C-alpha cells in the first residue's frame, strides 16, 4: 500500500500549495552596496508601484546619507508579497501602496501601526496635508497611513474629434446629460453595424463607479463607515447613467470595440489612437510617461467631470485617492521607521518625488512649488484636489469585498443591461452583516 501513501502525500502537496500568481518579473533594485564596516543600520522601504526604481532609490539615498543609515528601496513590489511580509516577522520599515483600499482590512487585522502617537511629536504637520487625501487614512478615529502622492480624475476630450463631429473643440460638456449627448454625436457606426469610433465608455480604462456615485451626491458607505448604502439613489443613478453608454448602442459591439484597443501605456491606447473621444483619467496622463511619450501631437483638453444638470453646485466634485505610506505592525524599530516616514512627508521631498512622477503632492506647501504649475492641464487636477467638493473613499475593513461585489454588479449592469436595483439589494443584504461583524457590532 506504499504507493497509496505516496499518492496521498503527492496529492496533498498538489492541492495545498498556495497558488502563487505568476506575474511579470518586477525589477527589484537594492541599494548600491556600501562597503562600510561595523554595524550599519538598514531601513527597508517597499513601494508597490514605480516605473523608475533608480529614481526612488536615489531619493531615499539622500536620507541615508544625511542620517548615516542605508535605505533599501524595493520597487515595484507585488501585492501578494506585501501580504506575506505584513504577516511575517520581517516586514519593511515603511510600506507604500498604490491606494488605501486594503488599509482598513490591515488595520482591523492589526497588520499596520496606528500613527497617532507619533503624530503628536509634530514632525508631520497634518494641517499641511490636503483634507481629502488625508481623510482616506482615517480608520475608526485613528490614522493608519499618510498620503504621499495623490491621484484624482477628470474628463479628457479629443479636440480633433469634437471638430469633426461639429462640436466646439474648446467647449467640454457642461452637464452629465450633455456628456451623454456629445457621446452620441461622437460615436460612429459603419454599414455593418460595427462601431468604428466611440464617444465615451464609462468604465474605460477601468471602473470609475466611485467618482460617478459621488457626483450623483452620495457614496456607498455612510460617512462613519458603519452602514452600507448600496441601494441609495446615488449608487443606482450612477449605474443607470453608465448603463446608457452600453445599452443605447449595442453591448456586444461596444465590448468588441473597447477590447480591441491596445495596451494602456502604448500608442494604441483607445484615447491616444483617436478611437474614443472622451475618457475619465488621472493627472499622470498629461505627464512625460503617457500622452507626451506615446502621442505627443494629441490635441486634447482636460476639465473637471461635469455635474448633473439639476445639481450645478456639485461642480468640481471629485474622488481623491492614491499612494499612501504606512508602518507595518511587525517593525521592530518603529521610531526609526517613523523618522524616515516623517522625512518622506516633508514638503520638499513630496514635491521632488511628485514632480518626478507627475502625481499630485499631498502637501499644501509642496503644491506651491512652481514646477506643478508649468503644465496647465496638471493644474486642473491640482485645483480639483483642493476643491471643497473633493472627497475620498471611506475606509472600512471590508473594502475589498464591497469593491469586488460592486465591480461584478457594474459588469452585469453595463454588459448585460440588467436592472441595478435587485442586484444592489442582494449585495446590501449580503454585505451589511459582514460589515457589522468586521466592526464588532
Amino acid at each position, binding site marked *: 500500500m506504499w504507493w497509496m501513501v505516496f499518492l496521498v502525500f503527492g496529492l496533498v502537496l498538489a492541492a495545498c500549495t498556495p*497558488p502563487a500568481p505568476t506575474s511579470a518579473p518586477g525589477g527589484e533594485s537594492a541599494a548600491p552596496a556600501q562597503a562600510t564596516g561595523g554595524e550599519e543600520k538598514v531601513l527597508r522601504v517597499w513601494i508597490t508601484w514605480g516605473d523608475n526604481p533608480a529614481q526612488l532609490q536615489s531619493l531615499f539615498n539622500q536620507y541615508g546619507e544625511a542620517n548615516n543609515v542605508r535605505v533599501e528601496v524595493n520597487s515595484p513590489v507585488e501585492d501578494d508579497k506585501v501580504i506575506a511580509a505584513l504577516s511575517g516577522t520581517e516586514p519593511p520599515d515603511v510600506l507604500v501602496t498604490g491606494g488605501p483600499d486594503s488599509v482598513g*482590512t490591515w488595520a482591523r487585522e492589526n497588520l499596520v501601526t496606528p500613527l497617532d502617537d507619533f503624530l503628536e511629536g509634530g514632525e508631520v504637520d497634518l494641517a499641511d496635508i490636503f483634507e481629502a487625501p488625508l481623510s482616506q487614512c482615517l480608520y475608526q478615529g485613528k490614522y493608519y497611513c499618510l498620503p504621499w502622492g495623490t491621484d484624482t480624475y477628470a474628463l479628457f476630450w479629443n479636440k480633433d474629434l469634437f471638430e469633426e463631429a461639429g462640436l466646439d473643440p474648446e467647449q467640454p460638456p457642461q452637464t452629465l446629460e450633455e456628456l451623454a449627448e456629445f457621446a452620441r454625436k461622437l460615436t460612429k457606426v459603419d454599414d455593418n453595424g460595427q462601431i468604428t469610433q466611440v464617444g465615451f465608455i464609462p468604465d474605460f480604462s477601468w471602473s470609475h463607479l466611485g467618482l460617478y456615485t459621488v457626483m450623483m451626491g452620495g457614496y456607498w458607505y455612510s460617512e462613519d463607515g458603519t452602514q452600507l448604502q448600496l441601494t441609495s439613489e446615488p449608487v443606482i443613478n450612477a449605474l443607470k447613467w453608465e448603463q446608457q453608454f452600453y445599452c443605447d448602442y449595442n453591448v456586444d459591439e461596444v465590448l468588441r470595440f473597447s477590447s480591441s484597443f491596445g495596451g494602456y501605456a502604448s500608442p494604441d491606447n483607445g484615447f491616444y489612437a483617436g478611437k474614443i473621444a472622451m475618457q475619465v483619467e488621472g493627472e499622470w496622463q498629461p505627464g512625460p510617461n503617457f500622452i507626451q511619450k506615446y502621442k505627443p501631437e494629441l490635441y486634447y483638453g482636460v476639465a473637471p467631470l461635469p455635474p448633473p444638470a439639476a445639481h450645478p453646485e456639485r461642480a468640481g466634485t471629485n474622488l481623491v485617492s492614491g499612494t499612501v505610506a504606512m508602518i507595518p505592525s511587525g517593525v521592530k524599530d518603529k521610531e526609526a521607521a517613523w523618522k524616515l516616514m516623517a522625512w518622506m512627508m516633508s514638503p520638499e521631498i513630496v514635491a521632488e518625488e511628485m514632480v518626478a512622477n507627475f502625481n499630485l503632492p499631498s502637501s499644501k506647501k509642496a503644491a506651491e512649488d512652481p514646477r506643478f504649475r508649468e503644465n496647465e492641464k496638471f493644474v486642473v487636477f491640482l485645483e480639483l484636489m483642493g476643491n471643497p467638493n473633493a472627497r475620498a473613499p471611506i475606509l472600512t475593513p471590508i473594502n475589498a469585498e464591497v469593491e469586488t461585489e460592486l465591480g461584478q454588479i457594474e459588469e452585469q449592469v453595463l454588459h448585460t443591461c440588467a436592472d441595478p436595483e435587485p442586484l444592489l439589494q442582494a449585495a446590501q443584504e449580503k454585505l451589511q452583516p459582514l460589515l457589522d461583524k468586521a466592526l464588532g457590532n
Partner: protein
Amino acid sequence: MALTNTPRVHPGRSPKRWSPRTRRQLWTGLAFISLWICGFFLFNLYPMLASLYYSFTEYHIKQPLVWIGSLNYVNLVRDPLFWRSLYNTGYMVVIGVPLSLIVSFICALLLNIKIPGQSIYRVIYFLPSIVPVVASTLLWLWILNPNSGLLNTLLAEVGIRGPNWTRDPFWAKPSLILLGLWGVGNTIIIYLAGLQDIPQTLMEAAELDGASWWQRLWKITIPLVSPITLFNLIIGVIATFQYFAQAYVLSAGISPVGSGLGAPLNSTLFYSVYLYQQGFVYLKMGYASAQAWILFVIILICTVLLLRSSEHWTYYEGG
C-alpha cells in the same frame, strides 16, 4: 538491487528479522535523505496539517484563532460563487483535459513520422511549453483580440465573424482551453517517448497480416500507449483542478487596474482563483483552508476513480 541480501520474509512484515547489514543500509539511506525528510515535515506536512486545523477556525493572520467547527464548510456549500468556481473548473477538466490529450497524441503521431526536418518540427512544437505562462497568456490576448487579432482576422477571411473571445462569458473558457492547447509540448514529448517504445516487430507483423494504418492505430498504438495516456490524464486533471496563472493574467489583461478576478461575469472564476481571493485578498485564511481541503478531497477521489477505471482500459506489456 539496493538490498543485496533481501531476506526471505517480506521486510515490511517483520522488521526484527532484518540482518544488521540491511539495518545499517536502511539508516544510511535515511541519513542521506534526512534533509528531504526534514524539509518535508517542516514545509509540507506541517503546513498541510495546520491548514486542516485552520479550516475549522476563523483565522485572520494576526488575530487569535477562533474555533468555529464546520462552519466554514457549511458556508462554502451555501456560497453560490463556490459552486460557480467548481463548475468553471469542472468545465476545464471535462472539456480541456481530454481535448489536450487528443491534440497532443495527434501531434506526437505526426512528429513520429520519419521525414526530413523531424527534429526541427519537434522543437517547434515544444517551444511554446518553455515560454513563461504570463508571456504566452499576454500573447494570446493579442491573438484573441476581437477586431484586429490573428484568429478573428483568419476567420474573417472565410466569412465568419469571430466571437469576442475573452470578453464574452460564453467564450472565455474556450479561449483559455485554446491557450492551453498551444502549450501541450510536454505532453507531446511524453507521448512521443511512448510511441517510440512500441516494438517495430509488432507493427511489421500486423502489416504483413494486412492490417491497415487505421487498424494498427486502434489495435496496437492506442492500447500500447494507454499507460502513458493514464499518466497524462492524471497529471492533467490534477493540474487543471489547480488552474490559476492563466486566468489571473487574463483577468488582469482585461482590466488594467484592479484585480477583476473572474472577469467576464465570473466565467473565469476558477477554484484556485476564488481560493486566492478569499485567502489573499479578503484575508479569510480559515475559509480558504477549507476550500483547499475540499479541493484536495475532490482531486483524491478523481484520481482514485481514474486509477480504478484504468484497469479496464490500460494495457501493460507483460503485466
